[in-house]
């Protein structure tokens, strides 16, 4: 994926996680995956359509998700609490929404669909010419993963080469 598309997601994750957890975070591993996505714990998926299409998955181990949700909620939440899953969805919504806002102001037009929990072990197959970019953010509560698989939509395919995420 081109850096112009990646950077807003990194910046948004940095801003949202740092503010929400009230501590700085670091970007850990950055890898490309051609295989279908495999869920790591509590995962939320947001789909995008428009000039850029695809999906972004926000994922954290159950223990990490519970710690993050507890921090955001201002009270201790057990891993089993449904609010933990809700918190991951909302975090995904905020990170992706902020990134999309930046991209929109750069001229890309999107529709962001509401986040939903990704409960199956594997994600949808990635198309042959698309890879997923997996970013790992090291937070004070543990590792948070963002898996991005996006392509230019049909409206801009003519003017830009296919973008692999």
């Amino acid at each position, binding site marked *: 994926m081109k850096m112009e598309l990646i950077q807003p997601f990194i910046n948004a994750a940095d801003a949202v996680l740092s503010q929400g957890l009230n501590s700085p975070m670091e970007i850990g591993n950055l890898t490309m995956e051609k295989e279908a996505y495999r869920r790591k714990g509590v995962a939320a998926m947001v789909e995008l359509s428009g000039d850029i299409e695809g999906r972004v998955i926000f994922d954290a181990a159950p223990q990490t998700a519970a710690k993050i*949700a507890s921090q955001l*909620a201002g009270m201790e939440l057990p891993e089993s609490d449904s609010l933990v899953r809700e918190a991951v*969805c909302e975090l995904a*919504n905020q*990170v992706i*929404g902020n990134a999309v806002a930046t991209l929109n102001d750069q001229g890309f037009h999107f529709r*962001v669909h509401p*986040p939903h929990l990704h409960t199956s072990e594997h994600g949808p197959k990635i198309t042959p010419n698309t890879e997923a970019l997996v970013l790992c953010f090291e937070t004070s509560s543990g590792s948070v993963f963002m898996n991005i698989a996006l392509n230019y939509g049909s409206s801009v395919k003519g003017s830009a080469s296919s973008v692999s995420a």
Partner: protein
Amino acid sequence: MEQFSPIKRSKDGQAVRYLIVDDSVFARKNLARIIESFGGEIAGEAGDGMTAITEYERCKPDIALMDITMPQMEGIEAAEKIVQQNPDARIVMVSSVGYQENIVAALQRGARHFVQKPVKPEVLYEVIKYVLGEDGVVAATAGAGA
């Protein structure tokens, strides 16, 4: 959470009543916590635009906090419908999708303000005061923040 000097209704000194609209239960709880730190009262909640319209008519809040990206009916359309029925409705859009087009569309359709998620309580507090205008008054309390 930081406590703010309570914002009251100037007409009767009562707590400002809020309708919170967001498809995320977590976001609604978080907003409710912030509102309570302003001395506000939660008059109702809704998880989508359709329910928001019904809930607005039921509870007639002083302010509605409205998310944009929601299932069934999105927040901007719901805001427009509420304002059509209630021209004095004070609707503040609260969304992570804060790009120019969305903000302009929301304001054109009757929203009074826009707050970007993640919500900073001190920002929302100032927006609430601004949107209430003369209909709101900040009650002085000893040791209160902001």
